[in-house]
């Protein structure tokens, strides 16, 4: 495995009586695809929220490439190279898909003339390439609100890729998508991430997806990591099968 990108140590957070993180230690290595699984309320999304600065842990630290990022604001963490895709796609619905992408590109390059039309930005080509990579190029001039859910998910991920991140955190990339489309979306996604050399962490409920697309899987349970390792090994564990997968 490559070098450690993201490293969490002793993360704790409680919401009233609910323990969402109870001493989480986790390293994410460069180049891997790590799946996070576990029952609802186990603290999977909370971990993503802490890693991206949306929540401040009550104890513990998160570092990225050796630099501590605990509780830094999301935009600073984003600029360091951690991008995020959401369970419910977070797009600028009143703007076209290309405008969405160019806003992301402009956020990333942070150098443009205030009076040059955004549509004439040199990054446009690259954004077209990314949209093509995730298979939604045909939608680029449509308003984001006109897109079906599956396509919105892909645009949401393309927005993250436009930031040229080192690490992409995805919350249920295939939720809300018809099961017949799931494999297609994950294939597109895996290819895109590999091509862009982006390390990924994704929360997932579908064990087929985990088995097929993750190099490593971490099992969350009541704010703790119950087990972590290669999918073939972890998913065969009797305790995991009983408590998490429910068989």
């Amino acid at each position: 495995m490559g070098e450690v990108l993201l490293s969490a140590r002793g993360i704790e957070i409680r919401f009233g009586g609910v323990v969402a993180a109870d001493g989480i230690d986790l390293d994410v290595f460069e180049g891997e695809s790590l799946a996070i699984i576990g029952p609802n309320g186990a603290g999977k999304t909370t971990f993503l929220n802490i890693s991206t600065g949306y929540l401040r842990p009550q104890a513990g630290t998160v570092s990225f490439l050796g630099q501590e990022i605990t509780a830094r604001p999301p935009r600073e963490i984003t600029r360091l190279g951690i991008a995020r895709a959401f369970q419910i796609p977070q797009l600028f619905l009143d703007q076209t898909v290309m405008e969405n992408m160019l806003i992301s590109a402009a956020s990333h390059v942070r150098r443009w003339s205030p009076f040059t039309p955004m549509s004439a930005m040199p990054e446009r080509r690259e954004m077209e390439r990314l949209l093509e990579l995730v298979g939604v190029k045909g939608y680029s001039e449509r308003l984001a609100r006109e897109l079906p859910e599956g396509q919105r998910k892909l645009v949401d991920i393309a927005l993250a890729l436009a930031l040229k991140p080192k690490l992409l955190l995805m919350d249920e990339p295939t939720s809300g998508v018809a099961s017949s489309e799931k494999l297609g979306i994950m294939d597109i996604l895996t290819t895109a991430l590999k091509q862009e050399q982006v390390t990924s962490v994704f929360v997932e409920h579908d064990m087929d997806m985990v088995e097929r697309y993750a190099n490593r899987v971490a099992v969350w349970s009541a704010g703790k990591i119950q087990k972590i390792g290669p999918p073939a090994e972890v998913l065969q564990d009797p305790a995991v099968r009983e408590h998490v997968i429910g068989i």
Partner: protein
Amino acid sequence: MAGWTSPLRIVAVAGFALAAIAPLFVPSWATLVALILAKAVVVLGIIVLLQAGQVSFGHAMFFALGAYASAFWGKYIGTGDLMVYLVLGATISTIAGLIVGLFVVRYREIFFGMLNLAFSMVLWSLLEKMFHYTNGADGIRVARPTVAGFSFTPDAFQYVILYVSLALALIAYVVVQRYLDSPLGHMLKAIKSNETRLEYLGTSARRVLLTGYVLSAFLAGVGGVLVGVIQGIATPEFGFWTKSGEFVFIAILGGFGHALGAFAGAATFEIVRYYASAQLANAWQLILGVVLIAIILYAPSGLIGLMRRNRPREGGE
């Protein structure tokens, strides 16, 4: 996009040409048209903020600062030059915009609107109460300034101020439309639809809004100088909340999907006021109220939206 650009452009060119030529034949229109253009400059700033979904009920403060900057110059220093007034008014309102902006951009929607209103009412109170300096509710006369060193008779001056207003309004229009087309303008719209996502792209929404806010304060200051000079007076009413409401009214009337909405709105508003107030005394507000209700119900993207029907929906739903 070409589908809507052309008809809108034709209307824009025709409108500006009419504003430049018609007063030559009907002298009484010169002041009316100048006033329309000056107000439109202020409303352009309101339109900028509306892109982010934020409504300011306090922009009259920057408008008043522009007008009072000229008035104070006249009162304490002597008759000045229009260019000096413009630079002074714009500078003061821009600095005030930056200071007030640092506070208000932390808030959204009703809180943003009300905090702006609160700041503007502080200024209004000061203008009302500091009688020794401001003449209170009577206001301060703005003497007719020289323009680039030349002085003019009242008759000639009404044309000079008309063409200065026209030139400034055109520049402001181009600047604002370019700004709205730029990445910053698109980020402003992104604040309205999904501010969280913007932060997750690494952009500070507050900074984006602050840029728009300072631009809008600058435009309000320029408009304030022009209106002060056109009307020859600056009164505390310039900074009263109803004046702020008037600018928002004009922006909604004209439509804020395009910078031209400011001109369509200001022209309609001032023309209705001009004629209706002559014919129907105090009923002109009633007429404008009915017009606004009709616009909100039947043309939510304003007068300019009526010309852009074939464009995909955007902005004010």
